[in-house]
């Protein structure tokens, strides 16, 4: 299903209701807030932003379509000049810079994470959530980001990929952290997911004779 039908004003198609709209807006805001000063830990003088952690959680909590929509909303706000990216970056310029592809990758990444985490409409389990984070949160984001970075800076693809390796360890830590956080939410605040999970059939007890 495309985003067009999601935002449809035609009654026959599925449209964005008030609850979904609020959740999409909140997650775009969560990722923005995670990029603000004080929102990240500083290790060895290099600040590690929590924004990609937010992207991973958004996909896992909202599901594929709403997760991708909320990242699209964030990118639209960045494009019209709000300084919402880590370090106060913003404006249409970031989409002409080396990190443009990674940002667009957030949208696709959130979508893939949502697909994997909620595969088959089942309740998230740790291994599937972790696979989703690694696939959508790292592989997909780099798969979009590295070629675009290579295109923008005109550094060949191989060398660009080598450069981007520097961020892999941090992203691995974030993927594991995000998976653990999502599992905590599943146990502590299942309302967050706003959906009914398919349950295993419980064996019906034979009435006592």
């Amino acid at each position: 299903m495309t985003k067009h039908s999601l935002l449809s004003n035609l009654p026959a198609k599925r449209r964005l209701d008030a609850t979904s709209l609020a959740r999409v807006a909140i997650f775009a805001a969560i990722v923005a807030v995670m990029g603000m000063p004080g929102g990240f830990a500083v290790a060895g003088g290099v600040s590690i932003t929590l924004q990609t952690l937010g992207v991973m959680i958004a996909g896992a909590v909202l599901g594929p379509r709403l997760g991708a929509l909320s990242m699209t909303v964030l990118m639209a706000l960045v494009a019209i000049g709000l300084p919402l990216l880590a370090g106060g970056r913003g404006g249409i310029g970031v989409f002409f810079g080396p990190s443009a592809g990674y940002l667009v990758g957030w949208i696709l990444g959130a979508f893939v994470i949502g697909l994997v985490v909620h595969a088959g409409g089942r309740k998230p389990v740790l291994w599937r959530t972790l696979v989703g984070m690694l696939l959508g949160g790292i592989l997909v984001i780099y798969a979009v980001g590295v070629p675009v970075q290579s295109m923008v800076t005109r550094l060949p693809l191989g060398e660009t990929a080598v450069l981007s390796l520097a961020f892999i360890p941090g992203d691995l830590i974030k993927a594991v952290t995000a998976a653990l956080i999502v599992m905590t939410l599943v146990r502590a605040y299942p309302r967050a997911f706003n959906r009914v999970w398919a349950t295993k059939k419980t064996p019906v007890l034979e009435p006592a004779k």
Partner: protein
Amino acid sequence: MLTLYKPGSGWLHRMPAGPKLLLVLSVVLGVSLLPSHWFSAGLAAAVGILGYAVAGLGPGLHGIKELGRQVFAIRWVIVITVVSQLIFMGPEPAVANAARVTAAIVLAALLALTTRVTALLDAIEAGLRPLERLGLDPQRIALLLTVTISTIPVLGRRASEVRDAQWARGARNNPRTFVVPFLIVALKHADELGDALTARGVR
């Protein structure tokens, strides 16, 4: 809400948001597509300086000072581009590509510097109106963007409340202990926001 906008009354400030967006995008795209030669480094730098000089950002050298601030803000992008390209490709592509990328980013910043966010939101809504036939609802998109903008400062305050509460209990600055409570606070806010929107007739 903090934005990148700087008030002014130059011709770029007064230009309607839609045409200005197209103008800035075409200049930025032109600079981005320059070949990786020495002359494009000079050309990109010239276009960048010219852009800030003629944009009417303020009296005298105000525009050039703003250009300095913008270049300083992306100094790490410049350093990483130059260094990586020097290592892998040599001086000519390093200088040309760094100048090209820098010029594109700072020229694009002219849009946010000279246009209010509300004007751009209106331009987006107007620009999406032809897509209404495809089933897209421009008003709902504008509502979604506006609601998000007004939510960010609220969540920013909630985040610092959560952080203060944890500091008061002696917790260190640890992402995991911060993120879970913050998410729950934020998601509860989402429920309230959804109810408030429903109560105001958004279905």
